[in-house]
């Protein structure tokens, strides 16, 4: 296809990689935003979800939060935050929006992961004299691990996607290459930017899948579990 060829030609041109609106700078912005926000989201969501799962409360909240997250358009939140007084605080609206959309998958998956741990196993652990903390660290956490990682993967992909959309609200990141291309009717640039974003998202997903396999405390892969 001609458009793809032109997009590769655009990517091959060294000039497009340099400077403030060059690919390297946009990629750095994208990774910086995504990384910071993913970390923030984990710090917020995981302790809450794991604790709620451990004590077995707040299930409705954890599940409904994820459903609500689906119904709210990311773009609307980004634009709304940009128009509030927060919009004058530089990158703050983007960071808030990214965290807002990364928290639900993390929270819901970690909570469900904790609750799906076989009650009989937990009872047995308690019967063996384990304290609440020991049950949490040595039984519940390893068994909940697969779903926690699924949540992390969803959140990471979500963050990369939302950071792309931030360009439509005037922020930086790789999405900016796409929106700049649209503004100048430069289709090769649009396609090139889109390829970069798509590759980045797939790479993030791939790296996390690999990390998941390497780090799994149970190290068993029986029936394929749904990769969501």
């Amino acid at each position, binding site marked *: 296809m001609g458009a793809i060829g032109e997009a590769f030609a655009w990517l091959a041109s060294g000039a497009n990689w340099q400077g403030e609106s060059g690919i390297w700078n946009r990629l750095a912005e994208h990774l910086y935003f995504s990384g910071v926000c993913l970390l923030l989201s984990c710090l917020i969501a995981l302790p809450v979800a794991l604790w709620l799962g451990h004590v077995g409360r707040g299930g409705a909240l954890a599940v409904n939060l994820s459903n609500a997250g689906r119904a709210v358009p990311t773009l609307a939140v980004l634009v709304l935050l940009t128009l509030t007084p927060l919009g004058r605080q530089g990158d703050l609206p983007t960071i808030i929006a990214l965290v807002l959309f990364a928290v639900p998958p993390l929270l819901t998956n970690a909570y469900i992961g904790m609750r799906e741990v076989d009650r009989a196993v937990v009872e047995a652990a308690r019967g063996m004299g384990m304290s609440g903390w020991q049950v949490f660290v040595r039984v519940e956490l390893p068994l909940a691990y697969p779903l926690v990682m699924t949540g992390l993967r969803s959140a990471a992909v979500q963050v990369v996607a939302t950071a792309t959309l931030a360009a439509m609200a005037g922020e930086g990141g790789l999405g900016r290459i796409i929106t700049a291309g649209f503004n100048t009717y430069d289709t090769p640039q649009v396609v090139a930017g889109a390829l970069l974003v798509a590759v980045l998202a797939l790479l993030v997903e791939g790296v996390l899948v690999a990390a998941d396999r390497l780090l799994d405390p149970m190290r068993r892969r029986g029936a394929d579990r*749904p990769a969501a």
Partner: protein
Amino acid sequence: MSDRSCLTANDWICGEYVRSRGQELTDATVQHVWITLVSVLIGLLIAFPLALLARDRDGRRSRFAGPVLGLTTVLYTVPSLAMFSLLLPVFGLSAAVVVTGLVLYSLTVLVRNILAGLEAVPAEAREAALGMGYGRGRLLWEVELPLALPAVLAGVRIATVSTVALTTVGAIVGYGGLGTLIVDGLDSLFKAQVLTASVICVLLAVAADLLLLGLQRLLTPWTRPRAPRIRTARTAPVPASAAKAG
């Protein structure tokens, strides 16, 4: 007098805006609804054969299951702005870009749920039907699909709600329904337009969800008594899939 000033004062909530731009809002909402509707319907039409392809004659997963599920997962990972941009050279600046992108996203949830629904059909029910002389087609149509319906409809609900939210991103090619109003509102810093369009968009998603929930109750009355809330969320085959928002 006070109404006039809410437009000049650029308030978030402005009745005058809704009155004076009612037509614009209606047009955007109508576009939003038809893009969503067409996308989910086409998604269903494509998802069914794909799910059937992923099963073999005995109702187990066929060798196509891996590729089909893998491909739809990969498509789902691509951020929406990139997806629409990649489709731009194929369709040009048209609604087809948005609809195609949304169809591809809906496939992930739909194929998974249809497949999970069919796989959950009890083997006894299949064998009984086969023993009664049902052919493959009749088995599928009269036994398997009705039994798979709750999972299928759960998938349709998830797909529809996320499609409503995702349609906004179509604004990049000018076919984003309410999203177009949101982005235009950003360019002109028009707060009332952004907030009103955003609220309508969320209301659309909620309305679609409730409508489909009603349909689900109507079509599958046998599923009603059990299932407290948490259970329905957990039995949905894709509990983990977050909002496909970006």
